[in-house]
């Protein structure tokens, strides 16, 4: 009997190991690839190698490589190795930190998770006149600050606006939306532009929402996910205002004035917008260029307001940080400084310039297509939830599930109550 038991244990263990072998090594191999490609400085002779990790791909990555080349030209004897982690950014970065072999400079937004592994930049930023800190849009530094330590220099940002397809509005004889419009206007326009038989809809709702992006709506309705001191979610995440903002999308899906997009095996909202089957789409600046290229006569407008309440926006910011374990922090700082210089900022078109002087020079805020991003920036003075509580990742897991339930037809209030109940334990 004993022998048989050992046999069972062994066969199970071996079979499981054998079966996992094929599925499980995906993450590992990624990690290896990244750490292998970056033996910083080793055996490279006089050339100093700086590793720079980015999440961008495609055109944006191309631009970043060009910036790196220019930096190399200005700094003889340096080589900037641009490491494009793409979708695996978080995994590869975490693996790099875990192995104490991180890239020297990296794109960063999730400061609460990573700040312990990052170099505080206060002294660099304050003492280096070349940076000209005052030229940055005020407020952008707040997103990269934890406990009064600055961990990143803002490199790009975007606010969120409503895109609309002018041709679809013209065809339906509906006037274009204007800044100062309300969610009631939004809903009635969406209803007018929807025709289910033609698979045409006024608005697209994402099947998988990033709760971060929804904060603008929640704040606009006077709600929030978490108390200002970051200690309480009961009465905030499940408040009437928060639920109301989320329910709005659920309702629009139910009455067919919006369509669910970007689920598994479904087209993304951007693609449907490009195909002229969605009249309005809500996003940051990222898809603007591709909308133009697709030949859509696209307009942008501020987010709608909830009646009687001020519109609030949320900023998606990317910053550059230096790893604490980096062995060439001075060079890394030089690179960051160049990356956020006017010259480099002008090269980057995928996000909005962080320097006021560049915006004034290019007159970006005068362009009607770009103006809403800047007016929305003025409306973005709330602090996002992930900066308020370091367990936010865990809470967000429940919140995301609740939002997903709402777009699949659940009642927002019930779903959010459940999410609060399930995440209370993380806040104790």
């Amino acid at each position: 009997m004993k022998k048989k038991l050992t046999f069972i244990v062994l066969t199970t263990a071996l079979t499981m190991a054998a079966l996992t072998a094929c599925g499980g090594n995906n993450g590992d191999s990624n990690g290896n690839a990244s750490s292998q490609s970056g033996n910083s400085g080793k055996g490279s002779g006089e050339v100093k190698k700086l590793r720079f990790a980015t999440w961008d791909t495609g055109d944006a990555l191309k631009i970043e490589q060009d910036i790196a080349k220019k930096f190399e030209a200005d700094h003889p004897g340096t080589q900037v190795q641009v490491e494009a982690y793409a979708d695996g950014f978080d995994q590869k970065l975490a693996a790099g930190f875990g192995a104490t072999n991180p890239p020297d400079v990296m794109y960063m937004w999730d400061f609460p998770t990573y700040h312990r592994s990052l170099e505080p930049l206060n002294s660099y930023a304050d003492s280096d006149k070349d940076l000209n800190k005052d030229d940055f849009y005020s407020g952008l530094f707040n997103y990269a600050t934890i406990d009064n330590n600055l961990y990143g220099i803002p490199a790009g940002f975007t606010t969120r606006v409503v895109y609309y397809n002018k041709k679809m509005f013209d065809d339906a004889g509906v006037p274009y939306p204007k800044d100062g419009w309300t969610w009631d206007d939004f809903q009635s326009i969406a209803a007018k532009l929807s025709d289910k038989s033609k698979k045409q809809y006024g608005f697209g709702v994402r099947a998988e929402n990033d709760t971060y992006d929804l904060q603008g709506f929640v704040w606009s309705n006077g709600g929030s996910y978490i108390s200002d001191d970051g200690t309480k979610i009961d009465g905030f995440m499940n408040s009437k205002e928060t639920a109301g903002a989320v329910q709005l999308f659920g309702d629009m899906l139910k009455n067919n004035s919006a369509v669910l997009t970007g689920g598994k095996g479904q087209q993304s909202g951007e693609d449907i917008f490009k195909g002229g089957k969605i009249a309005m789409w809500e996003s940051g600046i990222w898809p603007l260029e591709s909308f133009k290229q697709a030949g859509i006569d696209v307009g942008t407008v501020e987010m709608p307001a909830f009646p009687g309440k001020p519109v609030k926006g949320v900023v998606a910011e990317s910053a550059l940080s230096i790893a604490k374990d980096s062995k060439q922090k001075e060079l890394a700082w030089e690179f960051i400084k160049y990356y956020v210089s006017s010259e480099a900022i002008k090269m980057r078109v995928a996000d909005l310039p962080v320097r006021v002087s560049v915006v004034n020079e290019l007159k970006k805020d005068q362009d009607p297509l770009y103006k809403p991003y800047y007016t929305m920036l003025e409306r973005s003075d709330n602090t996002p939830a992930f900066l308020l509580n370091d367990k936010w990742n865990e809470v967000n897991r429940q919140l995301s599930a609740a939002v997903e339930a709402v777009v699949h037809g659940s009642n927002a209030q019930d779903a959010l109550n459940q999410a609060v109940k399930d995440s209370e334990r993380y806040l104790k």
Partner: protein
Amino acid sequence: MAQTYSQTAGNNAASLKPRRKRGWGGAAPYLFIFPWIFGFLVFTLGPLLFSLIISFFDWPIVGQVHFIGLGNYKSMFTDDPLFWKSLGVTLRFAALFVPFNIAVALGLAILLNQNTKGTAIFRTAFYLPSVISGVALAMIWSWVYSGDYGILNYFLSIVGIQGPDWLNDTKWSLVAMVVASLWGQGSMMLVFLAGLKGIPKDLYESASLDGAGVIRQFFSVTIPMLSPTILFNLITSIIAAFQQLTLALLLTGGGPMKATYFYAMYMYENAFKYYKMGYSAANAWFMFLIVLTLTFLVFKSSEAWVFYEGEMKRKPQKKMKSGGKGKTA
């Protein structure tokens, strides 16, 4: 053989050559298995034990590591609703997948065992999906299941049925997952086929002489003779069901609304999305215990339903042995 060789070597004490040869002769088998043993120790057993150790720690990738004893296991059971949710999904999946998997594989094997023309082509065709990598398989199925443009819904629309959006419908996504998982079961079919080929023809001949029809033959000859093969396939199916990750990750991402949030996916996310390595290792070890228990139960039950030809003679012997000690001499 080594022994006889050493004896002759001992007689020929004068020459050194054979001695050296003997030394190599002793090490050779170990040298041959060394690559495998090395790989096993370093890449399988080592990480396995290490994962057991880290399951007792709070082990984030970024930040401090603490020893927390059974803390991971405790919080898993006491305050993680997702743990129970994902376990439930996996059990439901296994309950659907395992019987279907075995039935379909057996059915296909029986069809292939018929001596008709073109079995070789069909054998290749049925086995082909197992050759395709899981990722490619997931891509194919995501097209098949697509709500608006999927081929499945196209066929359904021909017969006048408006198909659901399979992967985005909470009611259907798990079923879709089961069907997609059944696709790559060629190897199981082959094992069954080999088992079927191993059943002596004379059993069927005598059965039909006794007047047994095809169905009676299937249940009274095929199934009992095939039961050891069924046992093997049952166990590997159960293990495969509990480990299903590739399809969930690529086809549905665990959604919609966690309807296909498998335990393996939960484990994966804990490790590589939330970086709770210790917690995830604890999850993994708990899964190992579940699978171990199930395997043990299946083995235990097999005494009742698995038929080994060899045991026919042994069983009465056993009884004699336990019956009287005195007869041993």
